[in-house]
């Protein structure tokens, strides 16, 4: 049976047929049973299958985008739960981008950051302050709230401000390493949260613990964007940009320097990698992804306060990275998806199911047992199990394969060319 299956999967044509069949099946499932979470998850699952098929890269990308941007939203829109699905999709996108940012810091550069949510907070507050009447409380000039069209500029602004904070954090902490770095970043995250929660006097910048309400929704050529299904596309767009940047960076000179620093700092330094610049770049780029998503988050929630940015959130993003596989881009995306869907859909559904059982059949189930409350336990166990038994995560990181022969030839040619150039220089 398995041999037959293996053979079936060998051929590309079969793969395509089976994959399309799966997508159609899952799509039909969602179409016919619009309230079933399982059908929704099955459709999402097709992305993971897609990743494991032997298509060429471009075909994978295109079919992935088609499924996520067209098929899934279209089928879901037939259902009452449309906005719920899109809300989940939006959250997954937001956290994916954050996890990818943290992945640069932790996975690529090996710098454990336990205060990563601070950058998200900075991005969220930068939009919230200026897109509500809050700014007029301390800014001497200008007219606030800014119109919804400014949202698009603020995505860039949020990224820049967060990157700036990343550098601000980075400069002093470069002197510490390893475990100390974890503690310093944790402290930094808490400092930012406490500051945001308290900066309502003497100057009212963040409105303190009351939070900032009535944030202007974004405006796209006159259309006011308010529903989850619209935010889904914004998030999806940013997510594609992020993933493109990460992909490009991973194999660039900078990406390789990060990995060198991660594997052995001293050796990397000896090889001429500028430690300061490399580490700062990791902090800044990682933070900027978070900052962008922070802006989107503020616009989506229309309300921000400091309770959304606790230490627990930082560790949740870390869980995503560890679960998916440190350094592995597809892994981290999967990790973020699994964690968010667990938190918002699966656990909630099980809890509801338990409580409806206890209501319908009179079985008393103590509320302490509700899986929604057990989140910490579940994620704690996941962290332990993955750290002990599967350190590389769900989809382990793969180094790019390089053909040694070709490389040797290339470097020999390059050396030859260099030699020629220098000898030429000596002649003249």
């Amino acid at each position, binding site marked *: 049976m398995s041999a037959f299956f293996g053979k079936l999967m060998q051929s590309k044509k079969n793969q395509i047929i089976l994959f399309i069949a799966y997508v159609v099946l899952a799509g039909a499932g969602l179409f016919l049973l619009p309230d079933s979470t*399982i059908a929704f998850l099955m459709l999402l699952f097709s992305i993971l299958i897609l990743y494991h098929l032997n298509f060429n890269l471009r075909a994978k990308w295109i079919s992935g985008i088609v499924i996520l941007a067209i098929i899934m939203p279209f089928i879901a829109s037939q259902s009452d739960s449309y906005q719920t699905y899109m809300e989940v999709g939006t959250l997954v996108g937001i956290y994916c981008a954050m996890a990818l940012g943290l992945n640069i810091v932790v996975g690529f550069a090996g710098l454990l950051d336990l205060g990563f949510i601070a950058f998200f907070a900075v991005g969220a507050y930068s939009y919230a302050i200026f897109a509500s009447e809050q700014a007029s409380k301390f800014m001497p000039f200008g007219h606030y709230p800014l119109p919804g069209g400014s949202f698009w500029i603020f995505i860039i602004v949020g990224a820049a401000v967060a990157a700036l904070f990343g550098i601000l954090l980075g400069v002093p902490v470069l002197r510490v390493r390893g475990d100390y770095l974890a503690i310093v970043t944790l402290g930094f995250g808490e400092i930012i949260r406490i500051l945001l929660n308290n900066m309502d006097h003497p100057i009212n910048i963040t409105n303190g613990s009351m939070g900032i309400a009535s944030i202007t929704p974004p405006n796209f050529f006159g259309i006011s964007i308010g529903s989850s299904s619209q935010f889904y596309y914004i998030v999806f767009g940013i997510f594609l940009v992020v993933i493109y940047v990460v992909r490009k960076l991973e194999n660039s000179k900078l990406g390789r320097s990060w990995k060198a620093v991660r594997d052995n700092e001293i050796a990397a330094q000896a090889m001429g990698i500028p430690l300061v610049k490399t580490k700062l770049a990791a902090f800044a780029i990682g933070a900027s992804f978070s900052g962008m998503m922070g802006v989107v988050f503020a616009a989506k*929630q229309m309300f921000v306060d400091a309770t959304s940015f606790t230490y627990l959130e930082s560790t949740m993003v870390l869980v995503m990275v560890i679960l998916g596989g440190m350094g592995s881009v597809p892994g981290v995306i999967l990790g973020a998806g699994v964690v968010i869907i667990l938190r918002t859909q699966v656990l909630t559904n099980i809890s509801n199911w338990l409580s409806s059982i206890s209501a319908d059949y009179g079985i008393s189930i103590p509320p302490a047992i*509700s899986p*929604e409350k057990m989140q910490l336990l579940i994620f704690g166990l996941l962290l332990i199990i993955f750290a002990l038994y599967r350190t590389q995560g769900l989809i382990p990181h793969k180094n790019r394969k390089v053909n040694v022969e070709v490389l040797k030839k290339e470097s020999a040619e390059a050396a030859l060319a260099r030699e020629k150039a220098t000898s030429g220089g000596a002649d003249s």
Partner: protein
Amino acid sequence: MKLKKIIPLLAVICLLLGVIGGCSSKSGGSSGKTVIEIGSQSPLSGGSATLGDAIRLGAELAISDQKAAFEKKGFTIKLKDLDDQGDPKKGVANAQILAADKNVLALVGHLNSGVAIPSSEVYEKNSLPMVSPATTATVVTDRKLKTVNRICARDDFQGPAGANYAIKTLKAKKIFVIQDKTAYGSGLADQFRNQAKKLGADIVGYEGITVGETDFNGVLSQAMTKKPDLIYFGGVYAEGGLIIKQARQKGFDGPIMGGDGLDSSSTVQIAGDAVKGVYLTSVAGDVTKTEKGQEFAKKYKEKFGKNVESYSAYGYDAAGVILKGLMKAIDDNDGKKPTREQVTKAIRAVKDYDGVTTKVSFDDKGDNKFAKVYIYNFDQAKYPPVQKAEISQ
């Protein structure tokens, strides 16, 4: 190739969980009657779980009380209770779930204003009416959303009412204010401070504490050197109980005052004997005073095996208002299941609902015209405290 094994395993787990999830949303329809669900959102875990759970149980009791009346018209009513964990993100995600479930026609919630504000944006979009038993922040109804109602008093009524009592009745001249730096605590403490200043009292200190800590001696030492007549605390019982206890240990024997966040049996449990001499303003009336209330308390105890908390009655009344509006909407719709818009209008139009603790009629913002603030005093270490005064708007 371990990976090849892990992925299918994961798939199976996902599917299993999904099946359960799928079942859960299906398990509603029964006995051929049209199902109407009333949502509830409150923190069932975390630092204010005692209050959140009281709201949920109150709503549950109201629904089971009126089940028969709705059965007669061919409807089965049910509670769909969700845990917002006091977290705005979770609240919004839950709001989407409630909004997506077409059987849900209204909801009771929330406890925290910080959660209610973003979640109500979702309700407004889906015209899903909410009746809040406990969110006191002014901004909740000041946005004038059609779907947002509350039956409790606003911060700018409760805080000043407390200040009036503290200064006029308790004759406090020097007041030290402590708040817990949450939306609820700061909002209340700010309103209290402003009114107290207006009445000519001297605010000798205004300090914030961190939620989740246990040692407040630093702030209290500062308070002691300022020699206040009264300490005011804006926050909930988890920190409030400890502050009361530690202030008494420091030798402060004047009155300590707080808001409705202290109106819980847990305050007494934490503070112990130190709770004597504590005053609190609450938006919830004393249920043990009226016959109706006593009956409610008895039923509650029988059904859940717990004593009533102040918010149990408010949860009950919030659900009661919803059910009254719902019944009206059903009648107006010739006995058919009404739309959410109809229910929203019917709830806003509820007049003179007579509940166990409060009468309810909504104004154009969704605030309760009959909302009252009550002043209570613990004269012994026992919950509930004794009612001292009742203040109407």
